[in-house]
């Protein structure tokens, strides 16, 4: 990665999300969908936001881009600082100035994110026009971008419609659109969920390449721990609208600190595991935002839950390079509790 030509004081991360809240304003009271999420993203870094459906990952991305603010039913609180500038305080007109140039986004449904009645080249051109002008210049840049995201025969491809190209191609076009304005921050909301596994690998490789070549920071949202392991520098684990653990990928996979992360990693099949172990599932399911339990939101499913977990929401504590939001993180880390003997690992034993 090339060193960021930063004139700002070092130590200011590219993106700092602090205590982000997204509330749904329903007829009978507000529902907190994202409940105090905080994390930071450094320049040139790939962070994975992982968690199951409904944990608030996508809404977090949506709030960073200022899309959630456009929905009348949603209220966004907290700060999202892009190079120290708070985005949640900007209106849509000010945000428009930043979109495309400072931050770009890739969507989950690659075909749905493209206008069906406009040739893909024209759609890329609209993004290119944010930075460049002049027809010939834009056209040249479009072809260049299309080639960069690994689409062969760019001159021909740009004249095709989204339904004439495959899902993987659509996603490449989506990436071309997102990087057209040379943004510093790239949000990718489950960019590979709709693609098959080989295409998925190619798209992830492309994302990494884009990061390396342009020094972009990538916030990758996924529910697939495998993708996270393969792509991320750091991982942020979300559960029920808040961050439960955050840390470097290697640490988080080798020594997960939060019982939820432990469960997530256990649930992933491994090719290289020494013995044939039973895959374990986390018992129960994530509570709905409306019925979030008191204290730590994970306590009803947690094998280590104690009375304190039921009443008091845990604050994140530093465990090595990680931050873990768990009352018993210290005990877990020091090995006082043996995760492998927990009921989630072995359904034969009862609750401790």
């Amino acid at each position, binding site marked *: 990665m090339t060193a960021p030509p930063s004139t700002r004081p070092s130590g200011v991360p590219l993106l700092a999300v602090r205590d982000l809240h997204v509330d749904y304003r329903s007829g009978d009271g507000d529902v907190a969908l994202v409940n105090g999420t905080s994390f930071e993203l450094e320049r040139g870094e790939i962070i994975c936001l992982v968690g199951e459906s409904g944990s608030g990952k996508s809404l977090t991305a949506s709030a960073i881009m200022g899309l959630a603010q456009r929905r009348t039913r949603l209220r966004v609180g907290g700060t999202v600082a892009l190079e120290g500038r708070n985005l949640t305080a900007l209106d849509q007109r000010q945000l*428009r*100035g930043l979109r495309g140039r400072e931050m770009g986004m890739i*969507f989950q449904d690659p075909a749905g994110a*493209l206008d*069906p009645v*406009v040739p893909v080249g024209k759609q890329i051109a609209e993004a290119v026009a*944010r930075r460049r002008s002049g027809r010939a210049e834009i056209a040249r840049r479009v072809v260049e971008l299309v080639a960069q995201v690994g689409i062969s025969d760019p001159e021909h491809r740009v*004249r095709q419609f989204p339904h004439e190209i495959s899902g993987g191609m659509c996603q490449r076009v989506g990436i071309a659109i997102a990087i*057209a304005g040379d943004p510093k921050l790239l949000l990718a909301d489950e960019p590979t969920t709709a693609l098959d596994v080989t295409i998925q690998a190619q798209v992830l490789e492309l994302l990494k390449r884009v990061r390396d070549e342009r020094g972009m920071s990538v916030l990758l949202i996924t529910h697939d721990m495998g993708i996270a392991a393969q792509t991320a520098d750091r991982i942020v684990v979300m559960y029920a609208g808040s961050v439960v653990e955050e840390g470097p990928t290697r640490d988080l996979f080798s020594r997960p600190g939060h019982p939820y992360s432990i469960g997530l990693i256990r649930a992933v099949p491994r090719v290289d595991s020494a013995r044939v172990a039973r895959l374990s599932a986390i018992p129960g399911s994530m509570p709905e935002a409306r019925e979030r339990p008191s204290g730590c939101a994970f306590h009803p499913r947690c094998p280590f839950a104690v009375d304190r977990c039921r009443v008091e929401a845990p604050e994140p504590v530093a465990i090595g390079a990680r931050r873990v939001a768990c009352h018993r993180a210290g005990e877990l880390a020091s090995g006082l509790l043996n995760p492998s003997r927990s009921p989630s690992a072995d359904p034969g034993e009862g609750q401790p």
Partner: protein
Amino acid sequence: MTLTAPNADKVEQDQAGNAFQSAERSPGLLRESSWARWVRRPGLRRRWFRPNRLVLGLAFVFLLLMVAWALFPSLFTSGSPSATDPLTTLRAPSGTFPLGSDQYGRSVYTELVYGARTALEIGFLCTLLGGGVGSAIGVLSGYIGGAIDMVVMRCVDVLMALPPLFLALVFIAALAPTVTNEIIAVSVATIPLFARVLRGRALEVRSRVFVDALTVVGVRKRRILWRHVIPNCAAPGMVLGSITIGTAIVTGASLNYLGLGPTGVTSWGTLISNGQGYINKEWWIAIFPGVLITLLVLSVNVIADWLRDVMEPSSR
């Protein structure tokens, strides 16, 4: 691709599926590059060979004939639609009067030929005018949303509560009975339906992911409206337009029948009302224009139906 479909069920389904893909996603009718591709796409060609193509062909031929009558009436008849003759009143169909003559001695055939212009004029102009205004109101209202949408749609609700004919009647009664006013009246009557349908479409298009995707790139709201939302609303607009032509023809003819149309203009509606009193014996005066109105509206609707199948197969 097979032209005949013996195991119709499966093939039909397959075609529908295919056509859904191609038609739903590429009705980019408004630009030439997409138009050419749109016409050449497989779904469309397959639909040409469906069994009802005979009916469709007849409808096209009939519509073309009517258009020819409207454009060049003198090529089809030598008489004048307004030349009365007291010596030839109420003649039955014969060599001199192919479709008989009316109580003023005018050839019914000649009057029909000249009346085609009135019918088509109202059908097409009113659809264009009313459809255009209605679509604009609907798309804008749906795209802007909020309080504006609320107010506009309540107004449309009020208009929708009245039958289109009644709406046209109110307008023509308030204005002087001229050709322009008649067209305005019928146009106004078509506005509510267009506004309602296209507002729904705009609302749906606005909520699609690609609008978010464009927003996120920093494309202006106005540009999204013109370049993306409106083209995506074009297909249902054109389908509704083709159906509306028939309705507008009937509404126009009804106004003329009721004597609210412009005076001195030959029209099928007027002819029916003239022939009404003679229907028992000199039936040809009223029956032939009636048949023509029916056939014209039927052809237009057959074509509209086909157009809908091609452009919006999901709505079948």
